[in-house]
């Protein structure tokens, strides 16, 4: 399927998420149209469940891309969900906090996204279902210039999209 089709589909999913998510949880500021969040969080096969009950993101220490034990358990659950729901593929978005130069943070975000991807692959998710992208410091979700915000911005977010090529 073409990239354009995927974007249209992602847009539809995002629109759907906006309709069905009474809480208004918006996919966590992922750049582009976040594909996750569709369906009811009460349905374990729904992207909303993946996003909210399992957790679509893992956080990192300053200038690190190592996965903490907490991150590993989140990714373990993500992997299990992806194995159960093979109609979905995902783009893992890596992000950095603002305390760094632009190019370095792009490369650092790529390391983080890749660390998450490799973990998922090591737990059995087909690599062909997982793409990565880095936004560096371009897409913060928290905007204060303090560690409390930085900690939430240093993240890798697994953004689902329905995989019609499957």
């Amino acid at each position, binding site marked *: 399927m073409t990239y354009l089709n995927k974007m249209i589909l992602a847009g539809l999913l995002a629109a759907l998420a906006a309709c069905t998510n009474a809480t208004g949880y918006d996919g966590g500021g992922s750049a582009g149209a976040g594909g996750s969040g569709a369906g009811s969080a009460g349905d374990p096969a729904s992207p909303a469940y993946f996003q909210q009950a399992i957790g679509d993101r893992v956080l990192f220490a300053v200038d690190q891309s190592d996965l903490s034990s907490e991150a590993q358990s989140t990714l373990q659950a993500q992997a299990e969900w992806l194995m159960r729901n093979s109609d979905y593929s995902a783009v893992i978005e890596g992000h950095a906090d603002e305390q760094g130069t632009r*190019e370095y943070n792009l490369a650092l975000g790529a*390391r983080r996204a*890749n660390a998450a991807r490799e973990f998922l692959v090591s737990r059995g998710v087909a690599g062909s279902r997982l793409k990565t992208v880095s936004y560096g410091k371009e897409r913060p979700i928290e905007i204060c210039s303090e560690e409390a915000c930085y900690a939430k911005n240093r993240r890798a977010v697994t953004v689902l999209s329905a995989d019609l090529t499957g």
Partner: protein
Amino acid sequence: MMRFLVAVLLGAALLSAPARAQNKPLRIEITEGVIEPMPFAVPDFVPDSPAASEMARQIARVIASDLSGTGLFREVPADAHIGAVSDFSAPIQFADWKAVNAQALITGAVGMSGDRVTVRFRVWDVFAGAELGNGLQYAGTADGWRRMAHKVADAVYSRITGEGGYFDSRVVFVSETGPKDDRRKRLAIMDYDGANVQYLTDSSSIVLAPRFSPTGDRVLYTSYETGFPRIFVMDVGQVQRRVLNTPEGTMSFAPRFAPDGRTVVYSLTQGGNTDLYRMDLATGHSERLTSAPSIETAPSYSPDGGRIVFESDRSGTQQLYIMPAGGGEATRISFGQGRYGTPVWSPRGDLIAFTKQNKGRFHIGVMRTDGSEERLLTASFLDEGPTWAPNGRVIMFTRETQGAGGRSSLYSVDISGRNLLPVRTPDGGSDPSWSPLQD
């Protein structure tokens, strides 16, 4: 834009300058010792016709603004003048300008004929009672009048400092609007002083770090147009762009032209690892320059094209390295405290500008190419991304303010750390890249 710009020496017969007096010549040595700016006067240029009078006034103002903006010159304002220049060919009344302590005097005339504008000027050493250099004439279309003013200012700057000028130049940058968590970015291009802003892209995709070609005709930049960061090359005149052919599933960013204008060095990320590559723009053929599990990015060529300075965290933190342009062994050049990134080789070849991050602060600094004589020029919550003026004397960079309302804007500073000035842009600005002097 001005289509034609020609410089013509004014007839020597017009004026025969008196013999140079034997006092100190009109000269600024640009060293760290320059503290006291040289006073100059630039009375309104003399219009050849009433239609040219507004432009004649504006051209003098742009020249004054260029010179004052360097921090090396200080204008004696018009209301302090006791003399006037109403005839460009009449002898200069030096006593009138000595009395107000204007050491340099710039006189000029502006003629308009249809869409054609002609600017003539002369530079005077007031205390020597002599002309400095020869009179020159620039001609062009009316919409290029600011460029002609900048060219006059470049000539004045050059004659007095002995250095090349930088006023007839442009800056490509990222124009920013919106809050930090919904920042909209567009590529924009403007004159070095913030005039004549034009937008080259819309804000539908993130765009980053545009870089001029060595002749200023093209710009490399990174865009998320495809959903992933990829490098585009744009023809500035035509505003036409194409994406560089990089492998599916990779990210590419941090491009910079080689001095030949045909080769591009850039970062490519594959499997989470970022290395340096170069590509021949004509053939699309690419070649890997580094091969390490560390981050290698922000490459910049030496002016002779023989070497590349870049940043790498191979030692554990971001530091600066220099390697041959074809790859090979790299030598670390940064050894001070903290992290070093975004190195940019100066157009004169003598210095590397960089961003330094230390103890929670960011600095723009310069060092020699062997890493010696490190000098920090700025300090703030977040300064980054230096770019060199064409004469290697001034650096422009991005400054972002702290907190939820944080905003990016452009600043310039000279390489001695003085004359820190905001650069006027319509909205926020980041990632400036300074063009070479225009023809």
